[in-house]
């Protein structure tokens, strides 16, 4: 394995810089040509799907037609993406302009023209993302056609319209050739997330979860927006073509960093990535803005699978990858990303270990794996990070879809203490196998695609100077991940066959029979998944197994993904600002010690060679623990050996189950004060603003009321008023004459 490693020989910072420079002489830059017109259809076809679904809603369609239309549109988009891949991979970035949207200038100097057209940029990074976005979109659309069948009619059309709108927004985000398109897509996916999480709008918890997702995302969006503003003011442009051009400012900064003069990069440029990072953390659910993702499980499972596992949450990773050169120029950005990612991974893994709702566990696992992806980028292996995105997309989607199948079949039952032994039930084999494959990927079982992608990240974290603690945290988390993943599998899919229906069963029975104290589950038959679900799950299972192959294509450049990234802006520069500083010191230190400057090592060994074994060990330990605690000797669904451990852990288990009270903390620190401020302003509005308006209405009435008695109808009154009026005029004249003379 060590021999087959080959790959990027990173023996020293200087060599790193040289080899990287040789590898990608224009690392951090892209060259662009004008692309063919049909590439603009890739984002526009899902938009057409939205319109078609709206027509279905207007026409009152009650069949699965909206689903077929959506799958058709997204599938066509996928076909076009494959075609684009075939034609343009490894080439220059293709830019196709759809139409002019924002294009005006107020001066002639460079920073006085703002352009934000609806154009798409097809380069390797885009293709990597679009392949799995459209592919998974089509598959999950097919899955949802069966999953949502209980809601045929307007709800169905609404679901698929939002679904297509989401794919369109994601496409805009990923394919846009300027920051304005990216931001539009960013907001669009946030909107669709809101629409889809709150799909069951009659459920208060769903509505609350949708609002939470949107609001927390907004906080991140603020950072992103300010970052975009600063980008424009400093670089004078928002288009990638100009930002990443070879002779541009950014290329200059990158050259400075590569040469070791990281301190000469201006402060604004170091600040921009920090702000973009805030946006990325909001969208990709990292600390401290992750709280919305577990609650987002209130939405239908296809939504969780597509949006909150595979696509929307990877938008943050895409942002960092696209702007990797910029991030590399900042001394704080990448380390901050690394630490936040690592801590998030650890924290959510601990929470996931204590939950009982399998979808929640998967949600926390998503947060945790996103931490891995960010760490991958931060330890200077964008190939590792993006590869993990791709593999995670497939296996997490399949994991969610399996949970969805369980939910669909057991009337909404998701508690792992209530369902057991599914593999032995008729019709559930494919689901169980798909789940097993997904769990193996997630745990990093040797030779699965998840294993290789996680390994790239772990290895590189020990290579890059200063990132070793991150590596240890991630290793430990990998063990926890394996444990909680297989806890789910061992509890739900193997063991004694037991099941209870979920909440939706009682509602149906309630409506059907009218009996309301039937709690026994006799009369309930689990509903095995149909052809659509099984097909999709099988496809995903096969795909996630085959994704291993991606690692072995072009090994010298870090697998297929690494190969793709090399020609995009996400190419590894080989030195980031923090490395340049750190490495310079290490180089001096090492030279003083008489050694050649060396890269980091894992306990004295070459990380790349050793990490395979180490991560495998951690993963197997986790699986073994789950096996021991949750399978061996388990007789019922509700109990297992793990329960014996609970008293020993004391309050820790309870805190973990309550998600470390983070939501409560936020509520206390943020929500309550805002609520108070809101009420204060409400009072101000009612008393002051309304008061002023009412005063404006009150004054004329009061004046009229006061003046009305003078119209008493009495002759003498009128005469007196006349006399006084004349006297007044005379006095005014006297005074004026006196003043004048």
């Amino acid at each position, binding site marked *: 394995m060590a021999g087959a490693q080959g790959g990027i020989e990173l023996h020293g910072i200087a060599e790193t810089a040289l080899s990287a420079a040789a590898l990608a002489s224009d690392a951090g830059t892209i060259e662009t040509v004008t692309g063919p017109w049909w590439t603009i259809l890739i984002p526009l076809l899902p938009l057409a799907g939205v319109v078609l679904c709206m027509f279905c809603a207007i026409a009152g369609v009650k069949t699965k037609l909206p689903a077929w239309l959506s799958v058709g549109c997204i599938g066509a988009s996928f076909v076009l993406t494959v075609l684009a891949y075939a034609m343009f991979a490894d080439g220059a970035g293709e830019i196709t302009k759809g139409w002019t949207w924002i294009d005006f200038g107020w001066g002639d100097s460079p920073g006085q023209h703002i352009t934000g057209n609806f154009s798409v940029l097809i380069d390797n990074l885009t293709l990597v993302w679009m392949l799995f976005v459209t592919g998974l979109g089509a598959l999950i659309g097919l899955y949802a056609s069966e999953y949502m069948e209980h809601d045929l009619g307007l709800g169905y059309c609404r679901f698929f319209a939002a679904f297509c709108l989401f794919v369109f927004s994601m496409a805009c985000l990923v394919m846009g050739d300027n920051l304005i398109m990216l931001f539009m897509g960013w907001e669009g996916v946030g909107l669709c997330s809101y629409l889809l999480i709150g799909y069951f709008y009659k459920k208060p918890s769903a509505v609350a979860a949708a609002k939470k997702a949107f609001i927390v995302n907004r906080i991140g969006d603020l950072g992103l927006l300010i970052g975009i503003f600063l980008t424009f003011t400093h670089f004078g442009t928002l288009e990638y073509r100009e930002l990443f051009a070879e002779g541009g400012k950014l290329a200059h900064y990158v050259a400075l960093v590569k040469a070791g003069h990281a301190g000469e990069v201006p402060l604004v440029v170091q600040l921009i990535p920090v702000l973009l990072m805030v946006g990325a953390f909001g969208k990709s659910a990292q600390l401290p803005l992750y709280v919305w993702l577990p609650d987002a499980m209130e939405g239908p499972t296809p939504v969780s699978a597509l949006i909150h596992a595979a696509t929307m949450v990877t938008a943050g990773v895409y942002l960092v990858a696209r702007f990797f050169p910029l991030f590399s120029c900042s001394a704080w950005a990448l380390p901050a990303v690394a630490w936040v990612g690592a801590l998030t991974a650890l924290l959510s893994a601990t929470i996931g270990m204590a939950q009982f709702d399998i979808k929640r566990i998967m949600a926390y696992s998503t947060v945790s794996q996103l931490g891995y992806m960010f760490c991958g980028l931060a330890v200077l292996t964008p190939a590792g990070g993006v590869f993990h995105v791709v593999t995670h997309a497939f296996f997490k989607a399949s994991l969610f879809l399996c949970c969805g199948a369980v939910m669909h079949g057991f009337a909404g039952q998701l508690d792992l203490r209530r369902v057991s032994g599914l593999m032995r039930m008729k019709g559930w084999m494919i689901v169980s196998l798909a789940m097993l494959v997904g769990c193996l990927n997630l745990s990093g079982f040797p030779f699965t695609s998840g294993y290789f992608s996680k390994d790239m990240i772990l290895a590189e974290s020990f290579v890059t100077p200063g990132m070793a603690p991150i590596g240890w945290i991630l290793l430990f988390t990998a063990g926890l991940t394996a444990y909680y993943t297989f806890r789910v599998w061992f509890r739900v899919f193997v063991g004694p066959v037991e099941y209870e229906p979920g909440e939706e069963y009682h509602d149906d029975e309630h409506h059907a029979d009218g009996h309301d104290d039937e709690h026994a589950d006799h009369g309930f038959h689990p509903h095995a998944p149909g052809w659509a679900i099984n097909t999709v799950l099988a496809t995903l299972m096969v795909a996630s197994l085959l994704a291993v192959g991606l690692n072995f294509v072009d090994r010298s450049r870090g697998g297929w993904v690494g190969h793709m990234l090399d020609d995009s802006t996400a190419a590894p520069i080989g030195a980031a600002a923090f490395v340049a500083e750190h490495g310079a010191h290490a180089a001096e230190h090492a030279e003083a010690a008489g050694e050649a400057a060396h890269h980091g090592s894992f306990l004295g060994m070459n990380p790349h060679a050793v990490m395979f074994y180490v991560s495998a060990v951690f993963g197997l330990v986790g699986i073994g623990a789950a096996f021991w605690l949750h399978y061996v000797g388990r007789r019922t669904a509700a109990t297992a050996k793990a329960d014996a451990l609970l008293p020993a852990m004391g309050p820790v288990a309870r805190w973990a189950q309550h998600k470390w009270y983070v939501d409560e903390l936020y509520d206390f620190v943020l929500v309550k004060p805002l609520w108070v401020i809101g009420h204060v302003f409400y009072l101000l509005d009612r008393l002051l603003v309304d008061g002023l308006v009412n005063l404006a209405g009150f004054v004329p009435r009061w004046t009229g009321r006061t003046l009305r008695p003078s119209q008493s109808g009495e002759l003498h009154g009128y005469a*007196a008023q006349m006399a*006084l009026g004349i*006297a007044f005029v005379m*006095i005014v004249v006297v005074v004026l004459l*006196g003043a004048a003379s």
Partner: protein
Amino acid sequence: MDQLVNPFVLYGAIALGGVGVALALPRRGGSPQVLGALLAALGGVGVLALLGGAASDAGEALPSVYFYLFGAIALAAALRVITHKRPVYAALYFILTILSSAGLYLILSAEFMAFALVIVYAGAILITYLFVIMLATQAPVGGDTSVLAEYDRAAREPVWAAAAGFVLLAGLTTLLFSGARTLAPTGNPASLDLAALPGTIETALREDDLIGAGDKVVIEDDRAAIEYGAVQVERADGTVEEVELPADAAVSNTQSLAYDFLHNHPATIEIAGVILLMAMLGATVLSRRQVILEEEAKQAQMRALGGAG
């Protein structure tokens, strides 16, 4: 603004007069009318005395005793008009006011106006008023004032009315006095008017044999050249000499007034006539008794007429 008299003293006197009038007005439970009248008189006299003091440096003036006499009677009678409880007496006091006004007109050399005032106002208008009062008012027999109508017995808001009125008076007097200090009587109007009637001068001179038949009065701009009581005469032989005007060459007030009317305001006489005509018609229309005819009576009348004609 340069005032004729010290404004504060003036306003003080006016205020005093106002208080007096307010007190003098009739009230339900009896009011100190005499006291009020005295205070008002005091105020009025005060102002006139002030004016007198100021006037001592003003130059030529007019005869004074009759002014004070007639002025006092006029103001006292006017006060009684407004404060008397019985309407008939109010009208009678008004006649007294008119008579004293006529006296004031006389000493202002407006003889025609004085008598016109007495004839028309006191003789016609006030008589009409008296007739209407007697139509509508029940007179108390003896001292029984309870028969008097409520609206006659008590004045309405005397204090506010007096205040309003006397504020107006203060303003009026301030304005008038500021301008009046610059005025003085500018000579005998009769002599100037005489200048507009050269024919009359010639006739008077001939009657007194001061000029011959062929002599003419010098005329400049349609006016005889009169200066300081002497007129320039052009003798028949062409010499111009000054002849003193005889005493009886004056034009009477009536003549001057008539001349002024016809010379300067010819159309207004016609208009005045039209106004009076309209008033007559209006009064006739208004005082017609309304006869309400019933429908059947009207139709019966129509049939009768139709049958007859």
